[in-house]
């Protein structure tokens, strides 16, 4: 007998340090849920959310420059934020490198994630994009660089180039934006658990584990 699936819809951006931390914390929460006897198969689908849609693909400057000049934050505050974010990420085993980070528009990366979803490789693509952006200083705004990363996870490079050039997944990305707006989602990461519960932010793993358990119990009592 096959195990039932619990669907998790996640709105997030690539250029979102809390989304990468949240990805690790959710994974740990799902592990704890299973370890405690949870028998649902956890199926995650990522949806697009653009935190800074006004960012040019070829932004000239550092992350500090972006936050100081585009968001009006003081340089001291930005540096403190990035230092603390780096330390928090390190606790999750993530080596953020904000000095190397190449700030860019993430719209094409979201299109790529939709292609990857159709090929059953969305989680791998999401992980590769986050690692490239936060720890490797790779550019994730240009078609060529995205295609290189896509090929690394097993996608067809030529198909990726063609899809990003003709923007065939743009409507799907816009649909994600629209649904986020309809749901009132203004900050990410944001999780919808089994269509029943909403969870905002990079919660501790124990919270995710508890919510998964609660959703599973409720689904068993009240199957959709």
């Amino acid at each position, binding site marked *: 007998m096959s195990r039932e699936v619990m669907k998790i819809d996640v709105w997030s*951006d690539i250029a*979102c*340090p*809390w*989304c990468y931390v949240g990805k690790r914390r959710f994974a740990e929460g799902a592990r704890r849920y299973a370890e405690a006897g949870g028998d649902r198969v956890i199926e995650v689908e990522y949806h697009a959310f653009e*935190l*800074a849609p006004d*960012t040019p693909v070829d932004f000239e400057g550092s992350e500090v420059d*972006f*936050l100081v000049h*585009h*968001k009006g*934050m003081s340089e001291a505050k930005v540096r*403190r*934020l990035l230092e*603390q*974010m780096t*330390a*928090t990420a390190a606790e999750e085993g993530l080596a953020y490198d904000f000095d190397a980070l190449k700030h860019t528009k993430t719209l094409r990366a979201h299109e790529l994630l939709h292609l990857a979803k159709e090929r059953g490789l969305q989680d791998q693509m999401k992980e590769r994009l986050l690692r490239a952006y936060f720890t490797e200083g790779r550019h994730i705004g240009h078609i060529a660089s995205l295609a290189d990363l896509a090929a690394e996870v097993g996608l067809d490079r030529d198909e990726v180039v063609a899809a990003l050039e003709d923007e065939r997944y743009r409507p799907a990305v816009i649909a994600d934006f629209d649904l986020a*707006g*309809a*749901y*009132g*989602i*203004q*900050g*990410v*990461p*944001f999780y*919808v*658990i089994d*269509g*029943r*519960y*909403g*969870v*905002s*932010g*990079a*919660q*501790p793993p124990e*919270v995710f584990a508890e*919510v998964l358990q*609660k959703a599973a119990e409720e689904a068993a009592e009240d199957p959709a």
Partner: protein
Amino acid sequence: MSDPKPPFEMLGAEAPVCADGVCAVPDEATVPEETVAGRSGGPPEPAQ
């Protein structure tokens, strides 16, 4: 046509998010400063 509403109940305490291109500062705030003014952060409200 009625406004769309979240089909879900919110769970979990306030936790750090990124919003409007700015992220919460670890250990100092759980949400971006903008959220103090209610622009983002907590449970979503249906779009108007």
